[in-house]
């Protein structure tokens, strides 16, 4: 095991897959300098401009290029610097990438990976801090991954390049300075396999990406109060490991989701809805969706901190749930 940050692990995974497979190429903005977060470090020097393609600020055309290349036998990794910029190329995501395999009756594969970053907490303001994987997950035809650590970020990228569907990987900027252990070979990580990070008998808590450490901290505190919180990292949102979630809820009888995404019609709502539809009789209390409020991300530190869910909010929600009898 090696300690790595997410950008380091992604860069290393890209080195490995690009060396192994000439069909893989990287395209996006400011890659020559190693990418603005370092996830493309050393790639241009090593693989040259034909395979590490720096672009103008034209997300629609270079994402579309990725799609067309994937339809023509390549394995593109398209970097959209911040997921906030998905708006300028949303047609290519929502209509072109997402629907093409379906529209071909399944005959066309799109082994396309879109890497992007997300997340609030660094004072970047409303247009560089969103976590809009719920938007992507609501569009049929896309796969969505939200790694919470370096090994997953790298391993999901490898798996994504072998599948027939376009995958959007949302990497959380708030995790970029944290080193987490990873096997130096960075083995592929399966889609649709959740990870139970902590066992608990009382509440099932699903947490996504940067919310995973928040969930674990809350679970620690609650354990001291005698409440067992089972923390599940879904790893991918589509496919979603509903078996793991439902099995846990069957055991605990309580469900909460901790999600930096949309407060309305996001992944939190989707998971609450899934659980209550599938496991209603197991539930002992009203489930909780712990998300930011339904506002853009505010800029000022105090406001941004209040906007982001923290362990205290999780604890309060779970304590309330435990009292709801």
């Amino acid at each position: 095991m090696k300690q790595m940050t997410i950008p380091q692990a992604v860069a290393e995974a890209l080195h490995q897959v690009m060396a192994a497979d000439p069909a893989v190429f990287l395209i996006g903005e400011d890659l020559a300098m190693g990418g603005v977060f370092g996830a493309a470090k050393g790639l241009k020097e090593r693989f040259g401009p034909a395979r590490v393609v720096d672009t103008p600020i034209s997300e629609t055309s270079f994402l579309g290029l990725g799609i067309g290349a994937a339809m023509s036998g390549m394995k593109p990794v398209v970097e959209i610097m911040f997921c906030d910029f998905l708006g300028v190329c949303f047609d290519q995501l929502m209509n072109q990438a997402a629907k093409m395999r379906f529209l071909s009756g399944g005959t066309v594969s799109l082994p396309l990976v879109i890497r992007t970053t997300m997340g609030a907490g660094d004072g970047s303001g409303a247009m560089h801090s969103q976590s809009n994987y719920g938007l992507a997950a609501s569009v049929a035809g896309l796969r969505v991954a939200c790694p919470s650590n370096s090994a997953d970020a790298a391993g999901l990228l490898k798996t994504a390049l072998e599948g027939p569907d376009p995958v959007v990987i949302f990497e959380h900027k708030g995790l970029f300075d944290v080193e987490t252990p990873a096997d130096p070979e960075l083995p592929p990580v399966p889609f649709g396999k959740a990870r139970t990070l902590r066992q608990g008998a009382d509440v099932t808590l699903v947490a996504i990406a940067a919310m995973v450490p928040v969930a674990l901290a809350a679970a620690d505190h609650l354990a001291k109060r005698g409440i067992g919180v089972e923390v599940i990292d879904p790893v991918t949102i589509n496919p979603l490991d509903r078996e793991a979630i439902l099995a846990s809820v069957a055991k605990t009888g309580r469900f909460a989701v901790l999600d930096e995404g949309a407060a309305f019609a996001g992944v939190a709502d989707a998971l609450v809805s899934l659980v209550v539809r599938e496991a209603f009789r197991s539930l002992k209390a009203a489930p909780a969706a712990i998300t930011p409020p339904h506002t853009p991300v505010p800029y000022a530190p105090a406001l941004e901190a209040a906007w982001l869910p923290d362990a205290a909010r999780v604890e309060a929600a779970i304590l309330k749930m435990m009292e709801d009898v």
Partner: protein
Amino acid sequence: MTPDDQLALYARARFARAFEAAVARARDAGEVPGVVHLNGGQELVELGVFHQLDGARDRVTGSHRSHGLALAAGIAPAIVAAEIMGRTGSLSGGLGGTQHLVPAGGLFMGSNGIVGGQVPLAAGAAFAARSKGNGGIAVAFFGEGAAQQGGVMETMNLAIVLGLPLLFVCVNNGWAQSTGADASAGAPLASRARAFGMHAESVDGGDLGAVDAATRHLVSQIRTNGQPAFLEAHVSRVGGHYHGEDQGYRKDGKLTDPLDRLRATLVEAGVTAANLHRIEEEAEARARAAFEEAALEPMDDPSTLALWARDLGGLT
């Protein structure tokens, strides 16, 4: 283009026209579910470009108005017909339809329901060809209305900056639905392409010789220098924006049909009326046969949908 080539192309154009007439009849008969955009008037442009392409390495994307491209790419007419009618035995088994003809491979990559959406995709095919180093090129067909989509303009610049072997074919039929070309763009499109840094030509898309000369030149240039180029072809939209449209807004008067014009050239060049007549009859018969064959296909079975829902739904 040799006289034989011209005649062969005339036959293909007539067939494309007959095919569209059959689409229209099928639509009128309630056998086509939605709205269909027919390509009457732009056949010579499509076939002229395809004449230069190589099925083993080139790729083409098209707009909502792409039946002709699918046929020109060599997809069996009955398969295209079945796709348009939403039957099995088609490209997608009833999922795609007229605006989303998406074959598994080969020359034609697909039509597109989003105006301009297909143009960036062609950049990807061009990129793939460049990566493979096989001398292949990509071609994006789109209308003069689509030229006003940001993604199309971005792709022009991107193709130049990256050096992609990509031919932009802007079929200027004078109309974007009911919007006249002069209300779409404030200046000539070929000049715009030149200002992006591309070689650009503008031709009369009803003049096969002109189309042939321009495409021959542009395609070989792209194969040689690996740089994008732009072809604008002026054509007339023979029918409505979609089949059955009330074209109340239209004031461009009686049109010369490019197929009649080519026919006249062929007559002048000595092709006999009997020969032409035979070609026309054959086109008609083959189009009818394609639709008859497609109509034998069963309607698609909704059970496929459940499989897709499971797959894309991703609830493991």
